[in-house]
């Protein structure tokens, strides 16, 4: 990792001026809190816009995107630095293949992340999907099993294709609330976040529109239908999650492979041994001796017991 040359974040220059100022402000805030690198992991199903979102944040075509071939074959880390701040964004292939979670893909992602620290998880899905189903739950479950439940304290849900005409005459906000609620419900159930964990209700949701035909406001920033410029909004949400006090997830070998079954409860061995000795073996020996002492012996045995000590 040390040998990897981190490139200058030139993409930030091609954002409109208003966006640039907001971004630099947010990066400044992070640096104030002594956060000088940020590692963002982007995960989700296939074909929903993970790579496009990464390209939009970085500001250049860092990851290959194709509408017809929707997956990058393996995880990719894009690193950029500017003004002393380093941003690492890790783009991953989609987890679902053929109706099931692709274990090989998951393995690849875990192996790629060994010894890296994840500061932020972006769980990506589309805004214009009208159903949540078991596949989403399986993705969430896979993420939770791989990185632990704590990762959801550092996560935000990102909804792509945000520039849509809501169906059935619903208002945009109403539709957005309905969709994000449904998705968050699935996240909470898949990650087994209990009702007592209030942080489960606080997972933020951000909207993203990666297409070139995104509407723009008077500052030429890309805006959502509700009027907010989404790039600064997304980075602001990321900043808030990064500074919310929870610990980043260090992906070490233990996390990846799970606990070593050989070393589990090794400390208890002498205790169990002592227990066995004192509470099982000794009483048994005592009981045997007592039994031997109490038994009535037949006449021929009594006569023969003295034979061993007889002198001829």
């Amino acid at each position, binding site marked *: 990792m040390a040998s990897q040359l981190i490139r200058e974040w030139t993409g930030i220059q091609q954002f409109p001026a208003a966006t640039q100022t907001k971004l630099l402000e947010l990066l400044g805030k992070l640096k104030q809190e002594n956060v000088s690198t940020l590692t963002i992991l982007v995960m989700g199903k296939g*074909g929903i816009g993970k790579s496009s979102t990464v390209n939009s944040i970085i500001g250049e075509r860092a990851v290959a995107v194709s509408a017809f071939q929707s997956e990058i074959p393996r995880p990719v880390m894009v690193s950029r630095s500017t003004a002393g701040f380093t941003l690492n964004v890790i783009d991953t292939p989609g987890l679902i293949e053929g109706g099931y979670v692709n274990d090989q893909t998951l393995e690849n992602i875990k192996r790629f992340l060994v010894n890296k620290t994840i500061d932020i998880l972006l769980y990506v899905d589309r805004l214009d999907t009208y159903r949540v189903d078991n596949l989403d739950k399986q993705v969430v479950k896979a993420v939770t099993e791989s990185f632990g439940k704590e990762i959801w304290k550092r996560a935000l849900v990102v909804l792509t294709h945000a520039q849509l005409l809501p169906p059935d005459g619903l208002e945009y906000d109403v539709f957005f609330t309905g969709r994000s609620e449904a998705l968050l419900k699935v996240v909470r159930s898949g990650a087994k976040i209990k009702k007592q964990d209030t942080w489960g209700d606080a997972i933020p949701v951000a909207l993203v529109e990666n297409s070139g035909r995104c509407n723009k406001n008077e500052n030429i920033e890309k805006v959502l239908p509700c009027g907010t410029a989404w790039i600064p909004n997304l980075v602001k949400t990321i900043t808030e999650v990064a500074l919310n006090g929870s610990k980043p997830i260090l992906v070490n070998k233990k996390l990846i492979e799970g606990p070593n079954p050989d070393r589990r409860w090794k400390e208890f061995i002498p205790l169990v041994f002592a227990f066995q000795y004192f509470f099982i073996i000794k009483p048994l020996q005592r009981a045997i001796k007592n039994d031997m002492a109490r038994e009535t012996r037949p006449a021929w045995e009594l006569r023969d017991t003295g034979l061993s000590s007889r002198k001829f």
Partner: protein
Amino acid sequence: MQLNFEGLDFSRSKIVKPSLNCAVEEPVVGKVAIYGAGLTLEDHLNDETPDLQIVSDGPEVAGEVKHLVDTCYKKGTDASQEASATDQALHDPCNLLSSVFAVSPSDHEPELEGADADNEALGKTRGGEKRESEDEFTSSILSNSVNSQVYTAIYGGHIVSESIKEQGPYVYGGQNFLVDLDILGDLLKASSCTESEENPSKEEKKRLEDLHLLKVKLFRLVHRLGYSPENSIATQALYRLALTIGSHSSQAFRLKSANKLAMQLEAEGGGIDLSLNILVIGKTGVGKSATINTVLGEKKAMVNAFEPSTVTVKEVIGNKDGVKFRFIDTPGLRSSGTEQSLNQRILLSIKKFTKSFPPDVVMYVDRLDCPTSDLIDLPILRSITNSLGSIIWRNAMIALTYASSTPLDGPTGLPFSYEDLVAQRSSVIRQCISLAIGDTHEMNPCLMPPVFLIENHLSEKNELGCAVLPNGQCWRTELLILSYSLKILSEALPLSKPQESLDLRKIHGFGVQSFALLVVFFIAISHSPKTFR
């Protein structure tokens, strides 16, 4: 496009043979050119010597479509000469790539739409009208901008429908070609004039009468939708109707009288006795219930933006344009691997339902804007085919909803063209269907279900109150016309003439081999038991 035309004799008819090695000729409406006919897709794939090549510098098109283009055009007219002597062509009518067309220009992109899957080449141009931009078309067929349309238009042998623009209707057959109704009539008459005209028996008369009435019905429906009878799909249906009684009866072409009668009946008013069963099937959340609501024009089926709203198989009955529609609305199928048992239950209940209401049309609904990585939908299509039988794909159509969604940006940052997106999406679904059926010989491209584009959430409508897609199509009426045509054709099927062999030597005597092919093709359609069911 370089095409090879040796060996064809066009002397006996109003046909113009294009010169060798030319691009498509300077087109004038009213001229018909016959290009080569091909054999089965298998033959194409096995054949090494292409006589017919398509030279194009099209834009990058998705793999499947390009491959199919390459394989579809391998054999040229030589094949037609061999084929006419064999029986193979008789038994496999739909394997003949069609061959009659006149070239007429388009001043807008022809949209990708389906029609009769079985039928190949027949439609109508607006007679006698000269297009201003004819030169444009000739050059454009070589240029990049149209090549994607060439790909899309030929894929699957479907017919591109007319547009609603003022220019009027014209049709692209399987390879971007158009047909003039009258000329085709002449062709067929010419081919049949060696046959003696027997006096039709009473039975024969009755059959003709029934067919005539069906034609009248079709005309009336077409008029009700506000379309002229030259609509491609309607004329195809009419030809099929005509051909069910065999091509050697010149009474087959009493279309004008049928048209007149239809106008009369329409003016009088009165109902049309036609009822249509349409089975709507697809994944969950794609817009099945919404499509039903849009077609019927009122909100009869419940829709929900967040949860599955249709949970049981139920019928939605409505009356539209005097036709009684019975939509069978089904719960959506799940794509998760662990929910397949739910799918099985749904498919079982669908099967039970369709026993009492056998569907005339099966609409497989999916979204246009979903990602198109290879074969994600194969498991669902497989379970559908296994439960309901591959017979349902005979009179099926593919409906792509959210069709007004703007295409995604490609690698260059520019959006993909709409046609490419539609082509790619439909090719993926068709590939899944043919894999699900499992028998590629049985389901070659010309039998693939046609594709319709649907948008249920549009705000803009044209003057007819019909929702308009980005490519200017009015999809609802196209869909309705196709459904009506399918239904009428299925009603005509019992009236079709029993087996009768055609004396090919007489036709040969004309010296027009591909003529024979054309006729053979028509006869064989009526003979083929696989035509509809």
